[in-house]
């Protein structure tokens, strides 16, 4: 399955905990305290459906996804985008145990929803772009690195229960 994303790949064994510097912790918490959840979530998810159209395969029941305008205006897309960002919030509150935080969600995405885990990286890239647009110049290279590391850990945890 071709890889389309450049989110930093993170190999975390089950006996290895992710280590966060103070800067990374503060940065991640700061980002999430500043972004508007009901703007960023829907925008990132809609962008993912537009930029990587094969991701639409999982949302057959969402109605009109025919073009970018339809996707942006689709209420089910907005609602799911908000759900996703609130899901990320759980990781922010449990930075030292993201793996266990997402055990059930990983099983859900694998066993029930049958989502190719490569798609998590694509959504992560779209989140990076949308947060960058929201924060502007304050989204420095160092902030970007911390944010992408956080997303890489989330993506890795969501893929853990696949077999």
């Amino acid at each position, binding site marked *: 399955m071709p890889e*389309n994303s*450049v989110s*930093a790949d993170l190999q975390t064994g089950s006996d290895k905990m992710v280590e966060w510097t103070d800067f990374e912790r503060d940065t991640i918490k700061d980002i999430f305290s500043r972004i508007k959840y009901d703007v960023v979530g829907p925008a990132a998810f809609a962008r993912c459906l537009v930029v990587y159209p094969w991701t639409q395969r999982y949302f057959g029941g969402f109605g009109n996804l025919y073009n970018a305008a339809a996707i942006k205006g689709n209420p089910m897309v907005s609602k799911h985008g908000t759900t996703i960002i609130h899901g990320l919030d759980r990781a922010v509150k449990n930075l030292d145990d993201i793996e266990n935080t997402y055990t059930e969600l990983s099983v859900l995405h694998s066993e029930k929803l049958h989502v190719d885990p490569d798609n998590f990286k694509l959504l992560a890239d779209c989140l*990076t*772009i949308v947060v*960058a647009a929201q924060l502007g110049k304050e*989204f420095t*290279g160092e902030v*970007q690195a911390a944010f992408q590391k956080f997303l890489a850990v989330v993506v890795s945890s969501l893929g853990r229960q696949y077999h």
Partner: protein
Amino acid sequence: MTTLTAKDKQTVKAFWAKVSGKSEDIGASAVARMLVVYPQTKTYFSHWQDQSPNSPAARKHGKTVMMGVGDAVTKIDDLKEGLKELSQLHAFTLRVDPANFKILSHNILVVMAVMFPTDFTPEVHVSLDKFLAAVSLALAEKQGQEDPGVGVNLFRVTPARN
């Protein structure tokens, strides 16, 4: 590998017309981010005295890269032919692992989002993403082919790009 539609080309040209005035800043910022977020890319710049992200060398390189991107926009109808020389340079002289083109492309997109949040819509994003992927493919074109300076390669290998 998807081809660029007429709409993609139109979108890229229109967006480039809007942003090209800032191409030096875009390039500098993209290269700086690449060096910070993907430190393994610094290995290509060990010849710089100052490898810090905002060094004069890094800024200059950003400018060079974006001049190449701007040139590619004018050659958007035949990137393979238009970027032949740059492809030779990256394949035979610089020997860049093509995976790094994707990394730099990603950082160019992040900079577009930072600098042009309203203009960098999802529609523009997808066309620009496809364009940068096509440019990357054209730059990787010469990998594994005959090196005119060295002789015939025994294996014709196309790199696994994704």
